[in-house]
């Protein structure tokens, strides 16, 4: 059974795509077969891993539009061994509008993901709380919430938790107790001491649900997007690479505790 993880925050620019791509790459380099589902019509995760939207034969738009279409029919390998992607195309935005009239529209992705053969499925969500994000929430069993150090990110986090409560049909307390989510602080700049202090204070009640790994602001992460590579392949020794390595290890540790995963597998490229 695949473990399905949604990377969500309806606020834009919080690091969802960067996190999906680099966490996916890190998991693959750790030896876990991983699928990235690009559910953002902008298709940035697909582009970021070297898949040009204009050349793909099938995309997540087909999953939404064609009943009973399987993810395996649109998934394609990336340049990283063990990392596949179900790419997105701008058509996905139109497809999302068209499914509004369909019954059980929230379960389309969950159904398409049935029987996929991966260790992990990471879903990169669009910056909205529409039908695509609802599909991700319905399908996933764990949520990673990238959160920038800003006031609006905190507001977004509150809205998201309320939505999760509704879609997952669990109380806020259960959401907390059942270990369903983790907050990931991204683009952290230690020079912004006043903002950092305020935001961290606000997040204090969620310390237990916040990754210890912190993604520092790092220009190499932007440059890797241009190079269409995971950060480990673009600049393995930069802080972004280190931060995402730490995140991967912490993520796996949480996962082992939750699901009794086997011990760490040997790294394929030894970059972690």
């Amino acid at each position, binding site marked *: 059974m695949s473990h399905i993880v949604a990377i969500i925050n309806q606020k834009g620019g919080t690091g969802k795509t960067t996190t999906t791509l680099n966490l996916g790459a890190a998991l693959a380099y750790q030896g876990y077969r991983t699928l990235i589902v690009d559910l953002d019509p902008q298709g940035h995760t697909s582009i970021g891993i070297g898949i040009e939207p204009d050349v793909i034969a099938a995309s997540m738009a087909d999953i939404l539009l064609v009943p009973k279409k399987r993810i395996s029919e649109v998934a394609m390998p990336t340049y990283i061994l063990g990392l596949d992607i179900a790419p997105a195309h701008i058509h996905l935005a139109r497809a999302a509008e068209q499914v509004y009239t369909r019954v059980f529209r929230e379960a389309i992705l969950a159904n398409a993901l049935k029987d996929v053969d991966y260790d992990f499925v990471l879903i990169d969500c669009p910056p909205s709380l529409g039908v695509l994000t609802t599909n991700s929430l319905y399908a996933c069993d764990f949520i990673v919430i990238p959160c920038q150090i800003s006031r609006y990110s905190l*507001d977004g986090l*509150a809205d998201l938790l309320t939505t999760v409560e509704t879609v997952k049909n669990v109380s806020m*307390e259960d959401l907390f107790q059942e270990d369903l989510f983790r907050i990931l602080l991204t683009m952290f700049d230690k020079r912004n001491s006043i903002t950092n202090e305020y935001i961290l204070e606000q997040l204090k009640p969620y310390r237990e649900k916040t990754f210890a790994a912190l993604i520092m602001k790092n220009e190499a992460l932007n440059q890797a997007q241009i190079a269409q590579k995971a950060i480990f392949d673009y600049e393995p020794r930069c802080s972004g690479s280190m931060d995402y390595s730490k995140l991967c290890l912490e993520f796996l540790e949480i996962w082992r505790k939750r699901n009794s995963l086997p011990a760490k597998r040997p790294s394929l490229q030894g970059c972690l």
Partner: protein
Amino acid sequence: MAKKKQFAGKKTKLARLPLTQALTSQAEAILSPPPRPSLSLFIPEPLTWDEVSSGRGGPLAVAFLFLVRELADLTLALQSSPGTVAANHRIHLPDRVPQPSGIMQALRQARQSLRDLQSLLLHS
């Protein structure tokens, strides 16, 4: 500092979330200091030994009582062992527990007595 003052009273949506409020009060309950040990040792009216035995009076008084009882038992054992000349080594407890300063003085004396005993044993 002036910048931070402008944050006062500004609540985020997250802070208003019922889950956040529940977690905050939970954390406050955990972090709030446990009930302080009885300060009765420091109040003018001294405690009885029974009150100290039942846990009132704090750790200092309990330690003192323990020490005195151990010494009393030791004295009794020495006096009752065969061949021992009965000596008048009875320990007289005061009627009431002394004030903390008195207890500290007694403990210091006990420590000094143990040092003297150790020195005596080494040279005997």
